[in-house]
């Protein structure tokens, strides 16, 4: 009887969870904890606090996974509106930290509304596309772009160019997957290429320009902004094929790396586990992304397809940009490595996304006819 009950509870508990995806996520999280222990110089409190972040994020994921799609879809619009209101509130009453107005103090908690928009914006766009014409017209794309640009511009003004760009990209994935014509995509690409010099001159803060310059040649400012990239490259390169071993990375243990537990945690991993470790980690990410792509491909409705695709590709973008940045092929933009970097907010956002994916995959498919 008791075993039957446990089985039943287990069933209800894991009903809407995709075990394959969950296994991948757990493996990445475990890796994260192991590296974090080394990156913090053996600070168990930080590891435990990250573990709590993970548990919280897991609860969020589980909860979302258990929400039927229809309800998620209904939530898209209110979440988006709330996000926009919060962004406006930040612009008006936000707290300034490091020269940027990003945080909103609600008295009991400090929140960063831009984080919410990472999910809310593609959700809203997908919702809109789903409600739009059966065959999408160019007007629909224009509306979707407006839905996207509103939060992007608000966030870019804070200024938080990195997040704005990421939301822009996640929105672009939605539009791309919705079937935007190739002609317009090529046209857009040309337009971006043309506007880059203008952006450089008028749209960028000095520190942002400096980052770009340093990215092109880190050695130009080896002790200033390029220092991070160079030290990070040294960490990765000196790891060699098999790495220096856990807790034995000199670059990370001796404080040469900036932010070794957040943005630059991958260089710690790389230094200690070498090319073999990197290959395994890349494979792990690839497996997770692959599973997500399968879920996306099988998604029943336009809304779910677009949402799933955007979440999957955004997740990939995070991984790529972070690894590219620490290994010196992309500028340092301050994006954490998903599931591995220390930090509660990004962990929750990421797992929220996976929760949606699981919900899409496991709830009864209601084919719209």
């Amino acid at each position, binding site marked *: 009887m008791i075993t039957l009950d446990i089985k039943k509870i287990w069933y209800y508990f894991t009903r809407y969870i995709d075990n394959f995806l969950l296994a991948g996520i757990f493996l990445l999280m475990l890796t994260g904890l192991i590296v974090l222990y080394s990156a913090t110089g053996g600070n168990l409190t930080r590891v435990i606090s990250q573990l709590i972040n993970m548990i919280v994020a897991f609860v969020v994921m589980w909860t979302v996974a258990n929400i039927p799609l229809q309800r998620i879809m209904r939530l898209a619009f209110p979440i988006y509106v709330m996000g926009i209101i919060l962004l406006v509130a930040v612009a008006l009453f936000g707290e300034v930290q490091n020269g940027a107005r990003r945080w909103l103090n609600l008295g009991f908690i400090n929140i960063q509304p831009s984080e919410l928009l990472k999910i809310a914006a593609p959700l809203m766009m997908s919702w809109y596309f789903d409600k739009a014409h059966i065959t999408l017209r160019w007007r629909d794309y224009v509306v979707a772009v407006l839905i996207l640009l509103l939060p992007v511009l608000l966030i870019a003004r804070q200024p938080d160019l990195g997040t704005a760009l990421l939301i822009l990209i996640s929105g672009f*994935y939605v539009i*791309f997957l919705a079937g935007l014509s190739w002609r317009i995509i090529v046209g857009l690409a040309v337009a971006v290429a043309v506007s880059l010099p203008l952006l450089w001159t008028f749209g960028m803060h000095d520190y942002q320009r400096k980052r770009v310059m340093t990215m092109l040649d880190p050695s130009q400012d080896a002790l200033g902004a390029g220092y991070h990239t160079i030290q990070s490259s040294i960490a990765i390169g000196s790891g060699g094929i098999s790495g220096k071993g856990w807790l034995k990375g000199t670059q990370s243990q001796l404080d040469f790396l900036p932010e070794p537990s957040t943005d630059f945690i991958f260089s710690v991993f790389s230094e200690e586990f070498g*090319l073999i470790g990197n290959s395994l980690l890349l494979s792990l990410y690839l497996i997770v992304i692959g599973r997500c792509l399968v879920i996306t491909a099988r998604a029943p409705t336009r809304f779910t397809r677009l949402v799933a*695709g955007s979440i999957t*590709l955004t997740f990939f973008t995070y991984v790529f940009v972070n690894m590219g940045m620490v290994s010196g092929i992309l500028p340092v933009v301050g994006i954490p490595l998903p599931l591995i970097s220390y930090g509660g907010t990004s962990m929750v956002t990421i797992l929220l996304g996976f929760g949606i994916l699981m919900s899409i995959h496991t709830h009864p498919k209601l084919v719209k006819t």
Partner: protein
Amino acid sequence: MNNTVELRDHTREIRLFRIRLAICAVIVIILFGLLFSRFFYLQVSQGEHYTTLAEANRITIQPLTPNRGLIFDRNGEILAQNYTAYTLEIVPDQVKNLESAIDELATVVEITPEDRRRFNKLKRESTRFKSLPIRSRLTDIEVARFAENQYRFPGMDIKAHPLRHYPRGELVSHVIGYIGRINDKDLEQFEADKRLKNYRGSTHTGRIGIEKSYENALHGQTGFEQVETDAVGRPVRTLSRVAPVAGNDLTLSLDIGLQQAAVQAFGDYRGALVALDPSNGEILAFVSKPGFDPNLFVDGIDHANWRLLNESIDRPLNNRALRGVYPPGSTFKPFMALAGLELGKRSIRYAFNDPGFFSLPGSSHRFRDWKPGGHGWVDLRKSLVISCDTYYYMLAHDLGITNIHNFIGQFGFGREIGIDIPGEVRGLLPSPEWKKKRFKQNWLPGDTISVGIGQGFNLSTPFQLTFAMMLLANDGRAYKPHFVKQQVDHNKHLVEDNFVEEMYRLNLKQEYLDYVKQALTDVTRPGGTASRAGANAAYTFAGKTGTSQVINIKQGERYNASRINERHRDHALFTAFAPAEDPKIVLTVLVENGGSGGSTAAPIARKVLDYFFLGKMPEPAEKAG
């Protein structure tokens, strides 16, 4: 119909979506491949390179600066020592806005405008030094206050440095010299001498005096420590260590008591005194008055003090004993006398009736004796005792300039003798060749006449005069004058104590030497020019007075009448040895604008000798009005 269109659209939409998704999947794989190839490049192709960089990052070699050797006088009195001083240093590269950072620093620790100027100067000059001092000699309270606020000042740190201190200050400044902060020029020199490695971590080097000439012995051997450091260079642990070897300690032949006695004997007068032991060349006292406080220079002298010293009319920075050139005046005569005897131009018995002047044959120009009307019958002894000029005008004429130049040159005039502190000058012992070269003029017979009494083109330093007198006192033996008597290493093991060197010996007839020495003894006896100074002496001493004419009146010395008058006055000279029969000390006294040698210089010498033989410390002399 409508329904099938919708269905067809639906399948078309899914197909389109899946194609787009597949494109994305391919891009994902391509970009992951790009990442992998980047990792491969960094970790395999460039792995060794980055491993080297990582090693260099964490292992640094830190120099361990040795303690500088100490300097003592002959009785073990300390003349140069080290103490620990706390210096506030800044690494300019690590401070973002240097000016405002220093402004903020000034709220915690006092930073004077002078400190800033000095720091900025260092910053410009010493590109190869990373950590530069902004404030030295912090008090304990300042150290504590900074330590409390250190988190506010990245790139700034307090360092404990051994600092040089000269407890006797001005008294021996011209001998000991001082050390100064190493600049780029020094570094170039070290590099050329292949000493640079030993100076990694050193901040100071000898500038003048013993500190400079014995730099290599005093500096010591720099040690090295291999340490593992973190990103900001904080040592985490030591991997290996080669201890530094402290510099050698020097004991000088200088007697600080005698030095003190000499300075006191001078009273308010400016001048120089050199005293040495004729039996070995050890220098016992070496005074150039006024001196300066060498401690001001150790950390870089500030502008105001530098102006004060450099522009002072008394020229305290000028080492008069070694570098001050004066006409030797009548102190030249004993050597002229020896030249006359040795070269057969005069005999001991020769005497003449002094008319009080000398004229060249066929010339009406009169070279006058200092005593109008002359000294009556004068022989060689009397010529020295009363310092007869006419005798030496005639002798110079008879010897000729070439003979004078060659014979007297043997006593060290007109050349560098050699001494173990830097900066010696040659003075001038004129010759026809010299005049031709210098003025493009022929030597005139009249030029020779004034050379005979130590005037004319003649220029010598108090040091040279002392050396010449040593040769006379020593019957021609020339010992190399030197300050350093003994060198021991940091364990007090003897390194060297044989600094006595007989340079050469003049072959002079003993009879002549004894005669001249006897005459010089009579100088300090009743009837001699230094009889007042010699009165009631407990020992015999031989000497020669001299007066050297001040020729140039410099522009810019027009302060007030009495001052000008004083500075127009002749320099007083006295050179002596004692006891006359067995000399233990040779000394020369030069009193700038002191008037006559017998009245000013000789009494000073007497006081110094009284201290040397009797231990009597003189009261400061009264200045003649």
